[in-house]
């Protein structure tokens, strides 16, 4: 029993500890600090929240065989609408950030629901529906913003205060993690989701209602991407409304590596906790890139991220073979 707990603990913490040791060591060897001051710590926590929530949103539908390209477009559209509404009510005054966050969640859930509704109604493969939905949402954002950056409606003292205090994004991380764990691991909705994920036909034949479950998944994804949109706004103080022709899908690709790392950690504990730890790893990597920004260009960062993804997947998909090769031969 003790052994089992130890194994789980080591399995859960091994990757984050190794990543932290390597990256801290790298920074220290060059006389630098990965997180030098409070501002970089604030960004570290915000980036962790962005990656964790995007990864959760990506995995909810992807684990059920529903590929969704529209995640980025949903985040942008929810942010554009919520910032415009908030500005029209409060004019950038006190309470803008909480109202914007609440609206981002509600608007995000509604556009997610609309996306799921289209999928259920048309009954065409989700990947194709998501292509159409991405184009529509990008088009709507572009039309509202005229293809420009949204800045006046986003900048407010309230939002700056949010971005300047690490405990706000940390609170979001805790709340989102708790809600997602409860929803997917401890409710009837979650049990139905898992049944449909592992045996769609059988689950439907046993009476599980697939359509409401799928719609709820899309709504949850939308709400999560609404939060991501809000966090991105607080980080950069603007929204790029000019993405067209699938320009918004890049956000999704940042979540692939943490999704696979989270899945691996999930074998030893909980997949959602795995997503958090994977997000922490990605955030440490991002902070290290920031430290060495003079030496490592944006192109080099993309290459490093892609290589890490491939190397990790090579390990993940050939684990058995590697173990066989590395274990001592028995005669």
């Amino acid at each position, binding site marked *: 029993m003790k052994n089992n707990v130890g194994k789980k603990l080591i399995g859960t913490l091994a990757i984050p500890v190794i990543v932290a040791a390597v990256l801290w060591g790298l920074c220290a060897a060059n006389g630098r600090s990965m997180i030098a001051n409070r501002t970089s710590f604030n960004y570290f926590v915000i980036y962790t929240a962005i990656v964790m929530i995007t990864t959760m949103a990506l995995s909810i539908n992807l684990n*059920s*065989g*529903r590929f969704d*390209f529209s995640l980025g477009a949903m985040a942008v559209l929810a942010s554009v609408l919520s910032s415009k509404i908030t500005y029209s009510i409060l004019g950038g005054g006190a309470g803008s950030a909480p109202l914007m966050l609440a609206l981002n969640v509600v608007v995000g859930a509604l556009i997610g629901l609309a996306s799921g509704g*289209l*999928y*259920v109604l*048309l*009954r*065409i*493969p*989700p*990947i*194709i*529906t998501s*292509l*159409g*939905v*991405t*184009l*529509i949402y*990008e*088009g*709507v*954002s*572009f*039309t*509202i913003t*005229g*293809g420009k950056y949204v800045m006046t409606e986003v900048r407010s003292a309230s939002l700056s205060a949010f971005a300047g205090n690490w405990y706000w994004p940390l609170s979001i991380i805790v709340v989102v993690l708790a809600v997602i764990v409860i929803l997917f691991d401890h409710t009837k909705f979650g049990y139905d989701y898992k049944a449909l994920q592992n045996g*769609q*036909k059988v689950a*439907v034949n046993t009476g599980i209602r*697939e*359509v409401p479950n*799928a719609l709820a998944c899309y709504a949850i994804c939308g709400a999560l991407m609404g939060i991501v949109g809000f966090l991105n706004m607080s980080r950069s103080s603007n929204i790029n409304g000019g993405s*067209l*022709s*699938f320009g918004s*899908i890049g956000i999704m*690709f940042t979540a*692939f590596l943490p999704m696979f790392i989270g899945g691996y950690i999930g074998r030893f504990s909980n997949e959602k906790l795995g997503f958090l730890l994977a997000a922490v790893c990605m955030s440490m990597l991002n902070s290290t890139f920031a430290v060495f920004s003079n030496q490592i*260009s*944006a*192109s*080099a960062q*993309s*290459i490093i*991220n*892609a*290589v890490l*993804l*491939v190397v990790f*997947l*090579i390990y993940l*998909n*050939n684990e058995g073979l590697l173990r066989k090769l590395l274990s001592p031969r028995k005669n």
Partner: protein
Amino acid sequence: MDKNDKLAVSYRRRQTLITVLPFLALAGLFGALCAIVTAKGYRLDMYLKIVFNEGVVLAIVATGAVFIYTLGSFDISLGASTLFSATLGVLTYNATESLPLMLLVIFAVAVGCSLFSSVLASVFHIPVFVTTVAMMSVLSAVAAQLITTYGGALGGISIPSEVVKPLDKPLFKIIVLVVFSALCIFVFNYTKIGRRQKFLGGNPVCAQLTGISLNKYAIIAFVMAGLGVGIGAFLTLVYTPSVTTTTAGSIGMNIIVAIVFGGMPISGGARSRIYAALVGGFSYILLNNILMLLVDSNAGYGISQIISAVFFLVVVFVTGINYRTQILPR
């Protein structure tokens, strides 16, 4: 005629309609473009040239990609691969001033990138889609680095226009399109390669149990796609002899739209068709140009994209109407 016969006739009629719908859409869009351009008093020949030049690159790259999509896989890195091949082609020409060498490099790089993706997926058992996502990041990043190093992010890198100007003729491009399409149609419809790829796409377990190697046919599919990318990269340079970081940026996603627009299911299998890429590629470019003409303000780009997406979903919905299942599709 009993009830079953009536149902069979109705099914056959719907099937015929579904088969001809992409062609009708292409003809309708072509007619609409001609009518709108004429009504607005613009030069029709100029618009047709624009549509043809944009459409031919998308159609050729998408035609090669049909082989990958037939297997039920998909490759999101083809746009980045086109950019990377064109970038290395330009750098090669500028270093050697040799057009044949530039062509050789373009094709070698395009096929090499495709092969690398497929081998990585086959040897290390990585999901093809994830491999191509990683390839997309790497190729775009390396190309961007080369372009900014040798030419600057905005201006990009270029070859002298007189080098490729003699080839910037509709006849040359039509010949290239016809030859590549004929090759693809032959391989796809008249050899065991195409038949086996459709079998693998339709039922991979059953196909592999009959002794068909998924890895072998995946590699062939990626090589065919690489050829398409090579031709696409070369024709891009023929049309515009300069490369910037945004060149061919949207091709990767437009291929998926074009293939589906042409009436082919994204899941591949027996209903895969080479002509889907040709018909869908030109239809999509025609539709985009029509919408640009109709909504010509800055915000109009957004509106035209919304209309284009709705049209896309309607076409897919209608062409898939005979394949509805009780459970939700995945």
